[in-house]
């Protein structure tokens, strides 16, 4: 069947099997291999991407279901070579060890901060219930989420100040 998705702002049309999963579409058709297949059973969250701006597990969505919708993967976060605040925070807080869960963690946190820009540490931990780190490196991941929340708040404030003065 023909599917038509917007992935990281780019339109992709392809003829795929009806049963193709979104994660396979991203990796094998769109050639975006940052999104990992982890448990493949809706548990680990390694395959988390944004679908219309909200986190979903792309191993449990059909490419056909996503047709006509917008998908963002971790490759789509940086703009003009500048890392997204969540990516920057993972770098600065050492929010990764082996890195396998990282793309999914980053996307889950981007979605979390969109819904709750100022989460408490506990809200970050419950907000990441759907993402497993096989290195068990959760502390720095939570720190990265909290640091990103502060950076984003500062950026929003700066943008508002700039808007008010201009």
């Amino acid at each position, binding site marked *: 069947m023909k599917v038509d998705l917007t992935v990281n702002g780019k339109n992709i049309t392809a003829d795929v099997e009806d049963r193709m999963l979104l994660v396979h579409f991203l990796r094998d058709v769109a050639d975006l291999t940052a999104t990992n297949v982890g448990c493949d059973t809706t548990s680990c969250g390694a395959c988390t991407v944004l679908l219309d701006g909200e986190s979903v597990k792309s*191993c*449990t969505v059909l490419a056909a279901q996503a047709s006509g919708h917008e998908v963002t993967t971790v490759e789509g976060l940086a703009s003009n070579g500048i890392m997204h605040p969540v990516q920057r925070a993972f770098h600065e807080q050492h929010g990764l060890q082996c890195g396998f869960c990282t793309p999914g963690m980053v996307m889950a946190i981007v979605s979390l901060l969109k819904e709750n820009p100022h989460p408490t540490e506990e809200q970050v931990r419950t907000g990441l219930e759907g993402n497993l780190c096989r290195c068990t490196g959760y502390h720095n991941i939570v720190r990265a989420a909290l640091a990103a929340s502060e950076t984003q708040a500062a950026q929003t404030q700066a943008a508002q100040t700039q808007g008010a003065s201009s």
Partner: protein
Amino acid sequence: MIPSSFTYKRAGSAEEACDLAAEYGEDAKFLAGGHSLLPLMKLRLAAPEVIIDLGGLRDLSYVTDRGSHVAIGALTRHHDVEHSALLAREVPLLAHAAGQVGDPQIRHRGTIGGSIAHADPASDLPAVLLALDATLVARGTDGSREIGIGEFFQGLFETVLEPGELLTEIRVPKPAAAGWSFQKFNQRAIDWAIVGVAVQGGQVALVNMGGTPLRATAVEAALAAGASPADAAAHAAEGTSAASDIRASREYREHLARVLVSRALTEAGSRA
């Protein structure tokens, strides 16, 4: 893991969904959020030949005040039930329990109607809606009918829905008694409940204590007769038929049911 081959159809309306279901008969399955059905298909425990995607039926996603009850469209996602201000005010048990389903990603996709129609006794919302005495509305090719949730669940993954009948709305009466509680015991956040308990006033329902969600009728009778939460909770496993599996033995589930019902009744009492 990849599902076996099927033909994908996207319905543009409830009417079209029912027509497609009538056309393909027992070979077809409705797909809502897909977070119960797709995992089963990937494990090849389900292999429908035709998938009718309901994802485009945005008009079946709503939470509306209808005076004596709150009406919820079957395609309303757990995330939207969790964050509904109307439900938080009128039926806080349901809003809270929806926020305990799976994890954020699952709640961004899974729907209340899909969870009910799938009829997994380990799912949270079937038992919650049983405790709330919800009424379900189903649409077939010859019109709609109402089904009391007490008659809806027939067995493991089995409901009174006819092939091709589409669950369209869940009607939840505004509770008369204020006290409520939802208790869920699991090993990891993303797991199904080993046992769960939903309490609304004197109505108590159990997750994963049999082939269907169950009302704890012996507990309810004891409460009606004036028993204390602790005494009433001692009856929690009566009339249940919990399975033994990799996560828990039947005896352990029965123990959990008594403990969790006691906690739930105490918490509900503190909110009354």
